[in-house]
């Protein structure tokens, strides 16, 4: 069976023979390796994508279930006229990247937050990112980045 959907605005298809996750298909079949696999169970957020505009863990989306849907990944997050989305720029400026394995997931989750709420409070930022584990930074620089972007003073 062939599944068709839109990936970052472009038509994409892939064959499905077993109940693979969207994450596996993105990475293995579609060359979109930006989303990362770190837990296979929705407990780390590294594989975050937008499915029909909704932030989800792509490891928990059955690939067959994206038939006819729109999927946006980190590869599609930055606007055409810029190499970095504002959340990416904010993280770059704040030194919020270390190993970077959680980074694509945090970028997608934060972009989703700021798209819906351009001036989130610190509490809103934290709750929105509570599903994204970072093992390197202790979250300090990540919070500074987004508080800055939200137009708030870093603590």
């Amino acid at each position, binding site marked *: *069976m062939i599944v068709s959907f839109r990936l970052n605005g472009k038509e994409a298809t892939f064959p*499905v*023979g*077993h*109940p693979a*996750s969207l994450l596996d298909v993105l990475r293995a079949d579609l060359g979109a390796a930006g989303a990362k696999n770190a837990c*296979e*169970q*929705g*407990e780390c*957020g590294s594989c*975050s994508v937008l*499915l029909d505009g*909704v*932030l*989800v*863990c792509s*490891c*928990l*989306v*059955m690939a*067959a*279930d994206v*038939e006819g849907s729109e999927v946006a990944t980190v590869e599609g997050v930055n606007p055409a006229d810029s190499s970095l989305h504002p959340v990416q720029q904010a993280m770059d400026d704040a030194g919020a990247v270390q190993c970077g394995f959680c980074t694509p997931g945090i970028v997608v*989750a934060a972009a989703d937050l700021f798209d819906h709420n351009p001036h989130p409070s610190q509490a809103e930022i934290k*709750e*929105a990112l*509570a*599903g*994204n584990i970072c093992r390197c930074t202790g979250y300090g620089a990540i919070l500074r980045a987004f508080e800055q972007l939200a137009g708030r003073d870093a603590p």
Partner: protein
Amino acid sequence: METFYPSTVEEAVTVLEEGVTPLAGGTDLMVEVNFGHSRPERVLALRRVEELAEWDGNRIGAGVVWRRLERHGPRALAQAARTVGSPQIRNAGTIGGNVATASPAGDGHPFLAAVDASIEVRSTEGSRLIPWDEFFVGVKETALRPNELITAVVLPDELPERHAFGKVGVRNAMVISTVCCVVTRGSDGTTTVALGSVAPTPMRAYRAEQMISAQAQPSESDLAEFARRVAEEVQPITDHRSTEAYRRHASGVLARRLLERCLVESAA
């Protein structure tokens, strides 16, 4: 692998039979798949069945996701919804899926138990309503038949005046509960207390309820007795997440605090 994409419940139940795996948010099923514990060959993808996401008063469609419950649900259910997994999980996971998985730690279950909700299921033969305490049979076991689809959870027409949810876990977000609890208190003093993670299924502490419902204005010692009874009635186990002794203790403490919150609000 075969995937069905019905757009109505009627279509869905025509396909549903032994060997067909319903897929809603995927947040439980895909964990099993990714870990190699399950390999569904025939999948019933329910995301496109709009009527499953309908929410009409006290009838909450099985496809309603936690994010909506968090924002628009009755208070204690909304509070429970806010503790389910991560934002990503809450955007995908559904109340129907939570009920279907029947994990002893299901965050949505204590509310359903506390208000005596029923689970609405449908097959080609028609619909039936299963009271929560008949639906949850054991650890990850329900009264659902292979040809039945969960279509909604149905709350009573009138919810108790006050209700409150609490969940003890070792982390401040994205955590499986050690104990979770809902307490309700009606204007006549009728109290219910339901708990999760302390028995194979969600459970009510009926003896504690009975004792405290009789107290119009519970004293400190009534509250202590209530907590003691809750701790006595739960049937927790020791596992890698916690111990039996702590779960008993926390059940009592949490139930008492939630009751106090209901009482304070009644007074106010």
